[in-house]
């Protein structure tokens, strides 16, 4: 055993590259869990991302020994990688946009953009992981690489968690009420439903939720149309959706109560399970495009001097 470890210490460059690549790929794999977003679900989709993950990690890992050899041009290869990963983002965007037209409840452009950015970002994370592990091995020895790898995994998990609706809003169930043709969820007016048949379906199968924003920033985020579509899509994916093409009245829909900034949600799930619906709602990720912090910006410009 000691002979093997000694061998690893002697061949630092090889160890660095191999460990860096291994940790980078593992990080990419950890980030590629097929979750409730149901994407990518098929082996071929995964193969693409694993292959790119291997390339990314290899590039990151090889860069360090090259720099140790004062081979500074090696860095230009990293720009090549960056170019590749922007392609990944375009590819994801293209695929998801094409699929979106055929979804009963579409993801919406904001959500698609969010997903593609994440795909690009995760490749960079695996480059960084590979680079750091390789650097640690070169600077110390194989055990340094192990420590750096563990730290990278911690960072990766932190990045994966992200913020969700639960951070910005209280979610509560509300009654779906029909007043003639007017449909309300709690006290939020949703829409006008003309046909008796649709009214019956909505009254029997509909589930209503009220999302109350926790602060003024949250109000802006909840009112974002992209964020609302993402909520509807996620809830419909997890609970199923009771609708078909050609039933425009049976569309899950979210409407704002303008005065209070509350968001009223009407969903028509296949599985009418309150707990699951609650979990699905609170777990919807906040979209980068939807998160605004107007209170922070305003404080800086007007009240900043008062606080020093």
């Amino acid at each position, binding site marked *: 055993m000691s002979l093997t470890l000694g061998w690893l210490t002697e061949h630092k460059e090889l160890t660095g590259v191999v460990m860096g690549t291994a940790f980078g790929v593992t990080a990419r794999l950890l980030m590629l869990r097929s979750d409730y977003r149901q994407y990518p679900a098929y082996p071929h989709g995964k193969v693409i991302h694993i292959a790119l993950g291997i390339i990314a990690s290899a590039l990151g890992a090889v860069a360090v020994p090259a720099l140790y050899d004062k081979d500074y041009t090696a860095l230009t290869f990293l720009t090549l990688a960056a170019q590749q990963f922007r392609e990944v983002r375009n590819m994801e965007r293209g695929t998801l946009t094409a699929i979106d037209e055929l979804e009963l409840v579409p993801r919406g452009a904001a959500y698609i953009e969010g997903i593609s950015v994440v795909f690009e970002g995760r490749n960079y994370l695996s480059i960084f992981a590979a680079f750091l592990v390789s650097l640690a091995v070169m600077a110390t020895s194989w055990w340094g690489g192990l420590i750096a790898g563990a730290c990278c995994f911690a960072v990766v998990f932190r990045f994966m968690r992200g913020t969700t609706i639960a951070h910005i809003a209280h979610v509560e169930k509300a009654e779906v009420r029909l007043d003639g043709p007017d449909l309300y969820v709690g006290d939020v007016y949703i829409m006008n439903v*003309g*046909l*008796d048949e649709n009214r019956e379906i909505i009254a029997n199968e509909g589930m209503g939720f009220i999302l109350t924003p926790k602060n003024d920033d949250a109000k802006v985020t909840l009112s974002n149309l992209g964020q609302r579509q993402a909520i509807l899509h996620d809830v419909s994916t997890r609970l199923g959706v009771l609708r078909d*093409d050609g039933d425009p*009245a049976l569309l899950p829909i979210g409407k704002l109560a303008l005065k209070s900034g509350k968001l009223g949600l009407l969903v028509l799930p296949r599985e009418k399970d309150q707990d699951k619906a609650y979990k699905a709602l609170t777990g919807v990720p906040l979209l980068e495009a939807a998160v605004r912090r107007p209170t922070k910006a305003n404080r800086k410009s007007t009240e900043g001097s008062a606080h020093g």
Partner: protein
Amino acid sequence: MAKIVGVVTTIQGSVAGGAPIFYAKERDELQRIAHLLEKILDCAAHEMNEDLFIIVNRKS
């Protein structure tokens, strides 16, 4: 912008204008015609009042 693509009413002469107008004999028939139009045109039927429905296209 949403567009009115059809009007269904039970009261003759209560509406006029650019969209096709369908007259129904009674409220049941009004519901039936509105239902058919909703399915055929893939547009939502909205109730203005009990005797007047509009079919609205939101897709374009």
